[in-house]
């Protein structure tokens, strides 16, 4: 029984690992051959013409993430500081619950929200609306991460600083946050990697743009949107582009994840050593 069940559960674990390796291998096989300089530097070309690239989508994704960070990171870090350093009972409980809930809200619903709040008043799709949608997704993740990393800072560090006569805020800024800074930044990177792959909130906010982005108030293309549109199209050329774009997106996302985990693992190790 022992051996049988060990084998059976080990098989489950194996099956759970296979999809990642399969997807990774498939993307390399299908996408790598389309990667060249033009792919990263040129604009998309119409169906039927060969060549072209997705430079505008890469730049667009970067711009959307920048906007998302502007919306989500300062609020998130400050909110996290409140929860960890000032929090009492009532407000933190509600905020934590709301953050937890907001993370679970389907991303398509966030898209509707951003559409109602930004697109409708302005009257057209825009990079701002897309960045806002991604920022809304970013905010609760950053709040939660920041709080957790601040909580790992030992209380005697705070007491030491206070005993030396530093004020509350001075202590937070010069002792608590720097101690947890690496963790907080890693958490922000992970959160950005997560929203970087989101398509659903961009469909009716950032929309798409076949050319270079002409301003924050204009529709903008992005990697995930491009993969979607090219993937469901009927053209082989576009399918090839979709595979290559998916490979680029996945490589970036996994790279950030692996690096972040290495950093966090090392942090844990040094803490144990201390």
């Amino acid at each position, binding site marked *: 029984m022992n051996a049988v069940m060990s084998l059976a559960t080990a098989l489950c674990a194996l099956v759970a*690992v296979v999809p990642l390796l399969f997807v990774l291998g498939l993307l390399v096989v299908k996408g790598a051959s389309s990667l060249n300089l033009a792919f990263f530097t040129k604009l998309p070309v119409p169906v039927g013409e060969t060549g072209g690239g997705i430079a505008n989508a890469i730049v667009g994704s970067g711009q959307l993430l920048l906007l998302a960070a502007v919306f989500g990171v300062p609020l998130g870090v400050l*909110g996290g500081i*409140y929860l960890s350093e000032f929090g009492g009972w009532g*407000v933190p409980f509600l905020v934590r619950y709301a953050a937890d809930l907001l993370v679970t809200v*389907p991303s398509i619903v966030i898209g509707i929200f951003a559409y109602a709040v930004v697109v409708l008043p302005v009257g057209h799709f825009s990079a701002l609306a897309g960045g806002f949608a991604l920022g809304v997704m970013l905010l609760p993740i950053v709040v939660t991460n920041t709080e957790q990393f601040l909580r790992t800072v030992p209380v005697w560090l705070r007491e030491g600083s206070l005993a030396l006569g530093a004020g509350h805020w001075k202590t937070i800024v010069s002792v608590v946050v720097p101690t947890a800074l690496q963790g907080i930044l890693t958490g922000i990177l992970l959160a950005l990697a997560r929203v970087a792959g989101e398509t659903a909130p961009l469909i009716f906010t950032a929309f798409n743009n076949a050319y270079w982005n002409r301003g924050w108030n204009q529709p903008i293309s992005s990697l995930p949107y491009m993969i979607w549109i090219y993937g469901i199209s009927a053209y082989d050329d576009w399918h090839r582009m979709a595979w290559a774009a998916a490979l680029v*997106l996945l490589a970036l996302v996994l790279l950030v994840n692996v690096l972040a985990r290495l950093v966090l693992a090392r942090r844990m190790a040094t803490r144990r050593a201390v």
Partner: protein
Amino acid sequence: MARGVPGGARERWRLLGGTRGIDFIAWLVTLLAALSVLVVTVWVVVELWQRSKLSRQAFGLRFLLDHVWDPVFGHFGALPFVYGTLVTSALAMLIAVPLGVGAAIFLAELAPRGLSDTLTFLIELLAAVPSVVLGLVGIFVVVPWVRTSLGPVLKDLFGFTPLFQGPIYGVGFLTAGLVLAIMVLPFIVSISREVLLSVPNDLREGALALGSTHWESTWKVVVPTAGTGILGSIFLGLARALGETMAVSMVIGGTPQVAASLFAPGYSIASVIADQFVEATGDLFRQSLVELGLVLFGITILLHAVARLLVHATARKARGAA
């Protein structure tokens, strides 16, 4: 995660610092930032509610039970989408729960530490794969596979049941369920493993001391102790599956119908919003889609609350036993 600061000490340090001058400003600014999370959450609900007013007034509660979705004649019923969402999610859980819980038991209880860490790392990376990428794999790999391999086999074996009848298009409920299963698997594995690891060692040792085998102590003592927490992980996975948009929209077939056969193409709430919102002409059409979003949000809140309660209950139980 271990809390570095015990509650009592935290209170003391809070009082020590006081809140005057710059400290007061800092308190106020960070409080407002924290409240922004709360404000956004409530704001989302308010927008969904207000922007679906026309649809709610026109169809009332019948909206949920009406199976006709006809934009041309301005008649909107949500049933095909609710049905599609529920069927695909149920299918995904049916596949992912035994696999995920099995894998979690192996990783937490049976595997050597190094192997367990490596496998868990790889499985958790799967959660980071963007859903549009999985959708792409779905279109070009899973859909043909279901059409030419899995579908015919299932039809031969179970073709006498209504579940596996009719033509096999490749796209449809079955394919969407398969892709969703892959998406929720890492969540179930990762959270279930954490919950299992949080079961105190005394229980394992007690069971072993009484003469049970490794597997008996795992299955009869550790897993039941972690039971509610594992159930919580399943609910969290379910909440994910219900709200998943891109991967489902790419493989479900885009046909608003209630069909018994899993081979049939269908639609889900999230994917119909993704597909039709931009082109929705007329206020009623658009507001009906927003109401679908509201329904989805409602289901998610409900599941999320249940999941949280279950996970908390287990954590408390484990602490109590320790």
